[in-house]
């Protein structure tokens, strides 16, 4: 049977009789003293320089710097000048298992996440074949229990094999452990099918995550439609391809009382749709990616598909500014990477022929920190909060530094500068949108549900 994460309900009332949502490889529980780090847990209201003691994988004590003595067998990290945050949670990653393990698999994907400070992710279901049956969910959970270095939740498709025609056995999939339903990669083109899924969801639970795009309007587009696409002669995807679908789906969700998550919001018109739906009381949540927060379609001028081709496409500066505002005012609930690894031969081709998607787990914090926090555009607190709360729409509480909780946290050196990709990647693929860039803020150690999931190779720990 599957390994179950300690601290999460295995069955019973707390989780509605469903299996634990997240699953990882069992390992030794950490005994660790982090001395003198700046702790920051905005949700729990923890802030300031403290010692933090982890015993048997739990946060045992937080106390004044220098006040906790290391006992035998406890590793000590002299962490003065470093920061400790609750670990991050990404509700939107592509780990490619099964079928496309040459791009990524559960082992490399979770290592990549751990290297970015994540202690939980939700894997998308657009694998090959797509995850449409309970047996597939069970097989994935079984695999994760053997190779995943951080806890992973699995989503299942809304429609069988993502064909957009028939619903999957959603109730059985939930029983097997599916934490969400999504045809991500494709929109649900039929309003009738989405309506049925949202009606059915009232019985099964499990938020439906939507990749919003009208295929009729997107056509064969490969980048944002606008000044840059017109100059480059590339077919454009208009912003209204996204916003009109959000408008349609928010109306259906409101009518049926369904719960939806809008994935990777990119355009100003889309933000308006979400804002209106939220004001109308629709159960709607949404994500934004680091690359949409930090780049615009001007970046596409280099025609480098490996770094700058993804769906939805990079939009204009006005869209980017609107996304930042929406993150600040709470319209956007969380930051999600849409980590989408692809092999070099799928990216080193002319722009139009290349696959869509970029990797983002290892650089999510550092990229947004460097490009938005350092210049003062957003606060560090906001970044930590929005990277941490991605599980809430799917019923998964954010990690916390509070005493007594399982240790899921990351230790970060905010001053450290590093060049992305210089030392390779934990991910199997190198299509990082910030490859070659110098970023500030480096993850030194990540703890995931009480285990040390990652430590930077060049960073050593002392043992008491």
């Amino acid at each position, binding site marked *: 049977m599957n390994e179950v994460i300690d601290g999460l309900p295995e069955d019973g009332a707390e989780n509605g009789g469903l299996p634990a949502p997240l699953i990882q490889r069992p390992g030794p529980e950490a005994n660790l003293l982090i001395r003198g780090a700046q702790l920051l847990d905005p949700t729990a209201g923890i802030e300031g320089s403290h010692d933090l003691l982890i015993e048997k994988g739990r946060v045992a004590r937080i106390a004044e710097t220098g006040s906790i003595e290391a006992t035998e067998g406890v590793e000590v990290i002299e962490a003065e000048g470093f920061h400790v945050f609750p670990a991050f949670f990404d509700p939107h990653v592509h780990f490619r298992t099964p079928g496309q393990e040459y791009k990524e698999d559960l082992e490399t994907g979770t290592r990549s996440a751990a290297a970015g400070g994540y202690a939980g992710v939700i894997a998308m279901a657009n694998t090959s074949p797509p995850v449409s049956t309970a047996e597939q969910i069970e097989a994935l959970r079984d695999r994760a229990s053997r190779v995943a270095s951080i806890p992973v939740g699995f989503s299942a498709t809304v429609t069988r094999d993502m064909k957009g025609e028939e619903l999957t056995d959603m109730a059985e999939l939930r029983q097997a452990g599916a934490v969400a339903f999504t045809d991500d990669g494709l929109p649900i083109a039929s309003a009738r099918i989405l309506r049925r899924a949202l009606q059915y969801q009232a019985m099964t639970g499990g938020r439906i995550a939507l990749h919003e795009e009208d295929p009729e309007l997107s056509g064969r587009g490969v980048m944002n*439609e*606008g*000044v*840059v*696409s*017109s*100059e*480059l*002669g*590339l*077919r*454009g995807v*208009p912003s209204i391809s996204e916003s009109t679908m959000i408008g349609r789906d928010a109306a259906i969700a409101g009518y049926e009382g369904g719960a939806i998550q809008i994935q990777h919001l990119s355009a100003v018109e889309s933000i308006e749709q979400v804002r209106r739906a939220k004001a109308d009381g629709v159960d709607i949540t949404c994500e934004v990616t680091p690359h949409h927060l930090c780049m615009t379609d001007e970046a596409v001028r280099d*025609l480098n598909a490996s770094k700058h081709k993804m769906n939805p496409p990079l939009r204009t500066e006005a869209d980017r500014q609107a996304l930042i505002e929406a993150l600040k005012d709470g319209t956007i609930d969380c930051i999600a990477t849409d980590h989408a690894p692809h092999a070099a*031969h799928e990216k*080193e*081709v*002319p*722009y*139009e*022929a290349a696959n869509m998607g970029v990797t983002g787990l290892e650089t999510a914090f550092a990229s947004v920190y460097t490009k938005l926090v350092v210049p003062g555009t957003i606060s560090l607190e906001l970044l930590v909060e929005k990277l941490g709360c991605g599980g809430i729409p799917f019923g998964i509480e954010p990690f916390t530094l509070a005493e007594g909780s399982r240790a899921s946290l990351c230790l970060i050196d905010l001053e450290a500068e590093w060049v992305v990709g210089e030392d390779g990647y934990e991910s199997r693929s190198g299509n990082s949108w910030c490859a070659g860039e110098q970023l500030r803020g480096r993850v030194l150690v990540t703890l995931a549900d009480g285990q040390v999931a990652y430590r930077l190779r060049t960073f050593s720990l002392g043992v008491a």
Partner: protein
Amino acid sequence: MKHLLSIDDLDPERIESLLDRAESFAEVSKRDIKKVPALRGRTVVTLFYEASTRTSSSFELAAKRLSADVVSVKASGSSVEKGESLKDTVETLSAYDPAAIVIRHPQAGAAQMLSQWVDAAVVNAGDGMHQHPSQALLDLFALRQRIGSVEGRKIWIVGDVLHSRVARSNIQAFSMMGAEVTIAGPPTLMPRGIDASGCEVRHSLDGIEEADIVYLLRMQKERMGESFVPSIREYARLFQVNSRRLGPRQLVMHPGPVNRGVEIGGDVIDSDRCLIADQVASGLAVRMAILFELLAHGGESSAVGEGPVPIGEPA
């Protein structure tokens, strides 16, 4: 200048000097012996992933007139048909140590990618809907032969700008050389945001009498099926340029191949105001000039060590 990928790689001075060079090659072409030894012993590869008559034949002949060895690869009938990637094809051809690779590809940015993989000079002979710089240069050359500089001239580009790499290169090149560019066509075929390039956008031929030069684009029949225009009939009624719509001093150009009776009236093609034959003739001299500038004059010495050859000396 190492490569010619886009009009962006040029400036007015470079363009003038290329056109000067083309002029001397045009003279060579009038002689009995039309070859010069400038690229003797060097190899030029032409790699065409799309059907082409004018561009491929004139690049080939230009390289041969410069005494280069020429290898012509077409996608049909080659390993490309067997699924070989662009990168692998290019690596194979690199074994011949080409001095230049001329590439035509259906996807934007192919020439630019190529330039990152090879040591050879890369000439973009058309990439998707992006750029076709040698076409813009030969158009400027044909105009220079007929009327001199385009500075201050009013040029209207009419038709399917959206799908046209010729339009993108020519808007840039004409503007760079000081012309006032207007584009005209149905709104469905005008790319959103194109006005940012500084040209005026119109949706009718009203006012076309002000144009010194009317540059027509090919209207592809496939566009009807995609609802870009309702019918050929309606398109021709609104945007066909024929002698009734033109004043006596207005010149007409077209990159070819033409659709007689669609975007252009047959009476115009057969008239003296039409520069289509001049454009084709210009192609050879301009492409000789491009290869010469990149290979013989671009700083690196020639493989056989004779250096730039004085123009006009027959081999």
